[in-house]
């Protein structure tokens, strides 16, 4: 590891001034039976390195669809999504998978940890996929668990952890391969107010340490912690007034 790697959660591309995310007139249509649902209708935005963006809006407004496009788990029907300058919509599946592994960290509302793996093994999973040696990934997983305050619980399985602890493990997992972009979909949605506040604090600290963060949320406090808030309605971004 290099000296810069010793930080638990460095941002992959923090020195660049080019936007980490550039979405240009993105549309996303779904077919539900005979009906076509227009989830996104010409969304454009840019997110700079080190930014912390909250995407808010009513249910069904297209927040999660936008997050899925940014996370390269979905493709726009029209338009372009550039992550770190690369058109991710044009990537083949294998390339997109590798891109997600090395450039994007995902945090889900329901944590989605592997139930039979320990906290440390869950954090190791993306690193193992990236081909990191066992010794290196164990050291990195411990570093990340320390960072999220769970150094003493590395051997615990998800079922032995509280919701807040599970979400912190999920955040550590998302940071495993030092992604340039951390995406979170309602990360406090399953947590009580106190635990949610802890997670909000963790996201703020992550951003202060250089990680570009995008969260989709209904949580006003989480949105308030962001540097910038994007409001959406009916598949479109509402321009700031």
């Amino acid at each position, binding site marked *: 590891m290099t000296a810069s790697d010793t930080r638990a959660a460095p941002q992959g591309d923090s020195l660049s001034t080019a936007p980490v995310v550039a979405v240009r007139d993105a549309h996303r249509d779904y077919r539900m039976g005979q009906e076509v649902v227009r989830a996104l209708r010409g969304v454009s935005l840019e997110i700079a390195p080190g930014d912390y963006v909250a995407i808010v809006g009513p249910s069904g407004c297209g927040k*999660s*669809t936008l997050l*899925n496009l940014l*996370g390269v*788990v*979905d493709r726009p029907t029209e338009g372009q999504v550039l992550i770190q300058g690369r058109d991710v919509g044009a990537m083949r*599946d*294998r390339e997109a*998978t*590798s*891109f*997600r*592994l*090395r450039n*994007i*960290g*995902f945090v*889900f*509302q*329901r944590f*989605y940890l*592997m*139930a*039979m*793996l320990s906290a440390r*093994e869950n954090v*190791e*999973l*993306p690193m*193992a*996929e*990236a081909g990191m040696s066992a010794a290196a990934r164990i050291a990195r997983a411990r570093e990340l668990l320390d960072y999220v305050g769970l150094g003493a619980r590395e051997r615990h399985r998800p079922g032995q952890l509280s919701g807040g602890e599970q979400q912190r493990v999920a955040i550590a*997992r*998302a940071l495993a*391969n030092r992604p340039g972009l951390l995406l979170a979909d309602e990360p406090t949605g399953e947590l009580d107010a106190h635990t949610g506040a802890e997670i909000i604090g963790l996201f703020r600290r992550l951003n202060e340490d250089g990680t570009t963060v995008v969260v989709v949320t209904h949580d006003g406090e989480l949105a308030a912690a962001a540097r910038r808030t994007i409001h959406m309605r009916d598949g479109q971004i509402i321009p700031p007034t």
Partner: protein
Amino acid sequence: MIRTLAAASLRRHPARTILAILGVAVAGALLLDMVMLGTGMRESFRRFLLVQGFQLRIAPKGTLPMDTEATINGASALLRTLRTNPDIIAITPVLGAQIHVLQGTRAITSFAVGIDESTEADYQLEAGTNVAAPDHIVGNAAFLTAMHVHRGDTVDVVTGFDPQLRTYVGRRRLVVVGRGRFFYTSAEQPVAAVPLATMQAMGGPERADRVSLVLARVRDSANADSAAAWVDRTIPRVSTISTDAAMRQVDERMGYFRQLAVILAAVSLIVGFLLVTTLVTVSVNERLGEIAVMRAIGVRRVHIVQQIVLEGVTLSLVGAVAGLGLGLVTAHFLNAILSDFPGLPATFHFFLFQPSAAARSLGLLVIAGILAGVYPAWRAASLPIAGTLRREAIA
């Protein structure tokens, strides 16, 4: 990590995993038993024919070996002729007949063979000594039990009863010198061996210089079928069958039986395949969200397929090993039941364990396990990530 995830997945529902392994083990045991039965009877028969290494059986013209009471006359000349063929390296004549052992006022009937004292062609000595003198007799355990005799005892043996003179014919007093395991008769059938000359003499003029069968061993470099053809051409009063020819007849007559075994083996293989497919499919369907998350965090599709296939292979492999043990135990008991069928030679087995056949059949089961995992794994790994996560979130 793939191995860790696969093991973790199997540990998640231990009861289900154990039941699946047991199911595969039962299918594997049935598969193994059918393979043992299908190939084992043939191999057992081949070993039975070659037990002492004699590839040719020379019987009276138009008969099968020891199938009738017919005998070959001019045995001495026959043996001399056979010795002129350089491919025939050993010969041993056998004269089979019924004998009666006198026990007070009654006579107990047994089958006996007159043999060449220099060759243990019909039995393997278990205790005592071989027949080495004209008044020696070796019996199997059933013979000694039926006649209430032990080694060292003498027995009065006759070959027949003359109703006009009301006397026994061919009477001899013989010494029981050994106990043997006879290859070609069932274990429960009393059978004994005496020197060939004694047996011929006991039979009177009708048996003089006659034999029921001649066993011949052909040198390894020679063709047994060619030697058999030479015997038939040279000595027209005999019919010769080689082991290979006998095996061809066995193959023809047992074809339907082997087909049945193949069908049952295929059924058990399909059952194992379906069982693993069902288990893996259920397991995968429960984990669609988990799989979608793995894909979302960058786990390659091929690694997810490998993990799920590894689960199927583990179930099949462990089940196959358990099935091997279970199959051997059931084959042992089934063989014991079937071998009790009256008249079957003690050396004949219905179920014969052959490592190569067992490895092939259980290997097939493992391959079935691999195939069983591939489709559900690939289907799950190919689901759209965003859509699957959305459905899981709603669920």
